[in-house]
């Protein structure tokens, strides 16, 4: 497979996953606001600011908007063309990448990606967003899930499909750490609130942001308790959005690409994912809390970045001289032949 194609496939699913996650975060938090009775400007800001931080868009946001409230933040994360991490830009980038590799993906997949982007740019989308945001964000998520279903059902099980998986799981793992980390910025609860009603609502929101509320209830059959939420989202073997699950799938896909068996590695990307997966397999939530959840999540994000870089180095990037050097090389070779 062409390296450029592998790169595009990786990014298609990364961007789609990102758009889906942003829509989840925004939606859950919008709804969360409904649980608060009165909110002044300050508390609105305090609520949304961490969410902006988690998408790394804080500075840009403040350049573009005067006020920080539900309307401006959701607009920024949804339709703002200047925000590289807005839903509309993620869908645009996903589509551009899909357009570049149209010959490599199924027609159904391309059509759905294209359709999703076209919807995002339509008047209909804006209207739905302002009247029924719940339906709007649900539609974005559903589109993303439909695309994943289409990939499952129509894209052949080959290297390209694995690159789609790699992008998806790397992005998902990263977003799960960010969703969890939001809790550390969200209204660091005043002592009175710890374990109180508001705290519970917020941890519940985090579960919903990761579509893991139902799973939580099923596994723990208990009230929402912070450490259990963290355990589920980091260490669960089954929950499809947990970091351990994502690493398991990522590791599997990388091994499918290279044909390397379990418990060994043939390149540094595999080495890193394998090692991280083992760590997760043999960690408990107590270990993590001892280290500090925020610090732990920070480290994970670092590791994901490194994995991404190593994948790029291994499969995508072939070192190449500059065009001028290349021209000289060719001239020399041709001289020798004459």
């Amino acid at each position, binding site marked *: 497979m062409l390296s*450029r194609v592998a790169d595009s496939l990786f990014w298609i699913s990364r961007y789609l996953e990102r758009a889906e996650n942003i829509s989840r975060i925004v939606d859950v938090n919008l709804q969360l606001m409904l649980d608060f009775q009165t909110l002044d400007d300050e508390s609105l800001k305090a609520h949304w600011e961490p969410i902006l931080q988690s998408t790394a868009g804080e500075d840009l946001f403040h350049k573009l908007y005067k006020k920080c409230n539900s309307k401006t933040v959701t607009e920024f994360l949804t339709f703002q063309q200047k925000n590289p991490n807005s839903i509309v830009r993620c869908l645009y980038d996903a589509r551009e990448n899909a357009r570049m590799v149209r010959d490599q993906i199924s027609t159904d997949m391309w*059509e759905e990606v294209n359709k999703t982007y076209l919807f995002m740019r339509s008047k209909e989308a804006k209207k739905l967003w302002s009247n029924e945001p719940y339906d709007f964000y649900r539609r974005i998520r559903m589109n993303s899930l439909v695309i994943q279903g289409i990939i499952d059902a129509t894209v052949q099980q080959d290297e390209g499909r694995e690159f789609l998986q790699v992008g998806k799981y790397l992005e998902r793992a990263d977003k799960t750490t960010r969703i969890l980390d939001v809790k550390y910025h969200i209204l660091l609860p005043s002592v009175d609130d710890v374990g109180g009603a508001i705290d519970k609502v917020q941890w519940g929101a985090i579960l919903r942001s990761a579509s893991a509320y139902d799973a939580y209830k099923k596994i723990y059959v208990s009230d929402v308790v912070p450490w259990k939420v963290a355990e589920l989202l980091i260490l669960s073997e089954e929950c499809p959005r947990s970091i351990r699950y994502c690493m398991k799938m990522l590791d599997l896909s990388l091994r499918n690409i290279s044909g390397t068996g379990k418990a060994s590695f043939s390149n540094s990307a595999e080495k890193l994912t394998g090692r991280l997966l083992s760590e997760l397999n043999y960690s408990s939530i107590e270990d993590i809390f001892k280290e500090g959840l925020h610090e732990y999540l920070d480290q994970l994000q670092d590791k994901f970045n490194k994995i991404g870089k190593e994948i790029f180095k291994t499969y995508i990037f072939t070192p*190449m001289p500059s065009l001028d050097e290349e021209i000289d090389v060719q001239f020399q070779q041709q001289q020798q*032949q004459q």
Partner: protein
Amino acid sequence: MFTSKDEGGIRPHYKKLLERFKDLTKEDYEQKQQAIDLAFLRLGVTFTVYGDDEGTERIFPFDLIPRIIPANEWDLLEKGLEQRILALNMFLQDIYHEQRIIKDGVIPASYILSAKHFRREFMNVDVPRDIYIHICGTDLIRDDKGDYYVLEDNARCPSGVSYVMENREAMKRAFPNFFEAAGIRPIDSYANNLLETLQHIAPRKCKGDPTVVVLTPGVYNSAYFEHCFLARAMGVEIVEGHDLLVRDSKVYMRTTRGLKKVDVIYRRLDDDFMDPCVFRRDSVLGVPGIINAYRMGHVSLANSIGTGVADDKVVYYFVPKMIKFYLDQEPILPNVPTYLASEKEDYKYIMDNLPRLVVKAANESGGYGVMIGPQSSRSKIKEFRHMIEKDPRNFIAQPTLSLSRHPSYCGGKMEGRHIDLRPFILCGKDVSIIPGGLTRVALKKGSLVVNSSQGGGSKDTWVLRENQ
């Protein structure tokens, strides 16, 4: 569709269609039209309009009323086009080798040597199987008497064939019941024929199945949709310049498993951009060293380098003479009568009759560099007069033919619009021509310009199995 300009009798092969279309209400048309437009948008059957931040894409306007060509008419066209492509290929082989046609005085040497796309660098290079033009799009028009004329040959990177296929799919969806009874020749063998054509020219040293790729300038090229479409339909990779590199005069593509050798390249990149070592040094679209690899016979290119000389409108003038010279046959399809501004007598005629003629620059495409006398302002005519005086070699002139018009559905009603036809010709082991081709239609009332960049649209082209 009609036998004469005043729209009197209906040509017999249109009767069935017209009866069927009579039953459709305005709403039916509009609904079908919308469904097709939407499908094109959803499928991304678009071309890119330049000069916009996001590279705005537009769909190629599609007209519901198909153009119909009966079997006997098509037979003639097919024979004529085959004859033409054979002569053109012999011509290219000749001028890049012995230049017999110049030595025998059929074409003045100066015309060839001054042709913008004549590639001196390619003199005496043998190309696989002596084929230069593997894919050709030849533009045809019909006059009011129903005779076909060749308007020009596109022998570099002709585009449009993907629209032919997509238009057909759209028509099938819009008129499913009508289609099966109409006796229309299918067009879906094109991709297969193209692949066979490309495999046919694989380098001799290549063992086993040759690796074929499509080389595109990239996603922002206006024809990117088509490049992808063809790669997909053939099941081969589409590559950009930086996906390829040359080592030891062999061409490789960069894959996730290292370098993989490439044998045949269907390139949709003009000569100028192919190789910064040979042509434009500033081009970043091409591949350094690729031309040398081609010369050495390690990789094959379709079309070959230097075919653009056949696109030159002055060289076009000589194609009927080529047919006589190389094949010793009479041309089956005539050229549009053409005057060369660089010939003394023609020059005088052109200058005396400028307001009545169509003047074209020899090496422009996409509807640029054209002046249609009767529709042009005085200042535009003056401007062209000046340009011709300055550089007569670069201009030809043709009478304004009364181009045939075809009913088209425009602005809620059926109206006659000017059309042309671009059949796509493949020349490999055999010559094969897609039954029909791209019918372009000037959607602006009265306009003679059908180019998509100038407000043209297209319609499905039906070649019937039988004479009707």
